[in-house]
């Protein structure tokens, strides 16, 4: 197998006296979907934020495509190819789909030496990219607020993919969605993975994880509780693992060597 696209080694993150992460390691292969599970406050968001350049790890190293990386801001991580979709922070409801899609990466064209936002191109690309993800927009001009939660997540994902993400991080993209919308987002994740992009998918829901995940890592109180590959673990076992250490002993057999 090829080398991991991103590898996090013994990441620790302290906020004052709070130790949010105490030594979490993992690696993600290109085209692989890694599911990060864990209870509220386990440190999942903090962990992916160190990956995305929002937080600097207190201790630990990040290797991206084999090279040691030190991101100063989210922009650095985005340029390197790490895109993050935050659950509700991704989109601006009153702005059009196309304006949101190209936010921060606006296409321009020059007319008489003056630089203009190329609305035509932006609208075309947005319609095309959304269609690839299975969403048919009425028009790229419509406000994002008119889309459902799942469609909005899909716009954010399509945007990340279009701008060349190699690693796509999704922080609980399905937690506020209904069944049908969740299904759409999961299908989108699957499409993205098949394009060879590594996906880090944070979720509470074992069934959602099982639907698209290749590997599963469970965090608890800032530590890795266990990791498993698809087929090495059943949903029940994963559910128990997430529920905490109480049932851990019974799982040791099936997870031997991976903890």
């Amino acid at each position, binding site marked *: 197998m090829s080398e991991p696209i991103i590898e996090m080694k013994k990441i620790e993150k302290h906020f004052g006296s709070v130790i949010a992460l105490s030594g979490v390691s993992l690696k993600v292969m290109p085209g692989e979907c890694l599911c990060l599970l864990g209870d509220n406050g386990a440190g999942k968001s903090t962990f992916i934020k160190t990956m995305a350049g929002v937080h600097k790890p207190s201790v630990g190293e990040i290797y991206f495509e084999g090279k040691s990386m030190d991101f100063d801001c989210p922009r650095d991580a985005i340029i390197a190819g790490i895109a993050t979709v935050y659950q509700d922070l991704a989109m601006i409801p009153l702005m059009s789909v196309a304006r949101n899609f190209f936010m921060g990466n606006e296409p321009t064209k020059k007319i008489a030496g003056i630089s203009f936002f190329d609305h035509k191109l932006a609208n075309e690309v947005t319609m095309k990219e959304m269609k690839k993800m299975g969403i048919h927009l009425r028009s790229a001009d419509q406000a994002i607020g*008119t889309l459902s939660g799942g469609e909005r997540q899909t716009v954010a994902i399509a945007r990340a993919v279009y701008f060349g993400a190699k690693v796509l991080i999704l922080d609980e993209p399905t937690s506020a969605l209904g069944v049908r919308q969740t299904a759409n987002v999961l299908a989108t994740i699957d499409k993205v993975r*098949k394009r060879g992009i590594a996906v880090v998918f944070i979720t509470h829901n074992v069934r959602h994880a099982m639907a698209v995940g290749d590997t599963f890592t469970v965090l608890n109180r800032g530590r890795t509780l266990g990791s498993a590959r698809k087929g090495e673990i059943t949903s029940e076992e994963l559910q128990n693992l997430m529920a905490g250490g109480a049932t851990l002993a019974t799982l040791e057999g099936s997870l031997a060597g991976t903890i």
Partner: protein
Amino acid sequence: MTETTSTPPVSTDKPDERVKTRSSFRQALIRPELGGICGTILVFTFFLLTASDSGMFSASGVMNWSIVSSQFIIIAVGACLLMIAGEFDLSVGSMIGFSGMSIALLSVVFGLPMWMAIIATFILCMGIGALSGWLVIKTGLPSFIVTLAFLFILRGLTIFAAISTTNKTIVGGIKDAAEGDWLAPLFGGKVLTGLFQWLGDNGWIETFERGFKKGQPVVDGIPMLMVWAVILLIFGHWLLTKTKFGNWIFASGGNAQAATYVGVPVNRVKILMFMFTAFCACVFATSQVIEFGSAGADRGLLKEFEAIISVVIGGALLTGGYGSVIGAALGAIIFGVVQQGLFFAGVESSLFRVFLGAILLFAVILNTYIRRMITGEK
């Protein structure tokens, strides 16, 4: 659970049957300017019916309310872009007083050439704008508070500077100081004077019947103030809707965090918008000072609210991220027309405020409704 085909099916190529198609008429109606457009039509209809024989719609009458509206437009454009970027500037009025006084003192008292006094004032005021923006960003305080502080600081400094140098709160002598200057006419001059003379000669517009101006048109040109209003309006509209930077303005005000995450330089955008607001206040003040030939320490009182009201009537969202420069200009026109129109109609001027409050409420309610339609919620 070993196969990726376990993912649920996606919706196929047919459009979602639950999305109602909207008529293009309805679509065209749903825009931030709608409130402003309705208001403008309403106001003009009202005055055409009630004050058409008062001279309000003669050449000089039109010029009268156009100038007042232009003044409002100049400050509304700045306030509009700043509000869309998610911030307020309550110091606009004080900034107008401050910059006017700065020009007067630098030129009349300290003897600087007029152009130098004007340029120095613009630099100083935009610097102050940048400072308030920087303070808002560094402290994380609402701009409401930071610029409220500047409202008092600048007004106090203006009065202090005037009193301590000239012992007066009104400093005159600008006309003489501006004589022969190359920059001053850009703010105080008139354009198209030839055209208006020609119109007057042909009897198409009113001319003076007697006196030393006999034969000259009553309205003898377009004041630069109006030219500035049009330039700023076009620039603001272009910047907001036609450029990359415009998208950043929307994004910064819509959700600063989301914008930062995708690499929009939110802080830079906001500081630049504070500077632009200060620039607009300076344009206003410079034109006024050169027109009046004097600067007064109390100039610009309450202008910040008039600017903000124009912007809100024009459909902008107080919390940022949504609005239109055209709308703000319509708001400014409503403002100007009503203020001058009530005068023409001979209505008690105190009723202006009543009317203003009523139209503000009406516009905001209508705009809230439009916004709900845009986001599809009912």
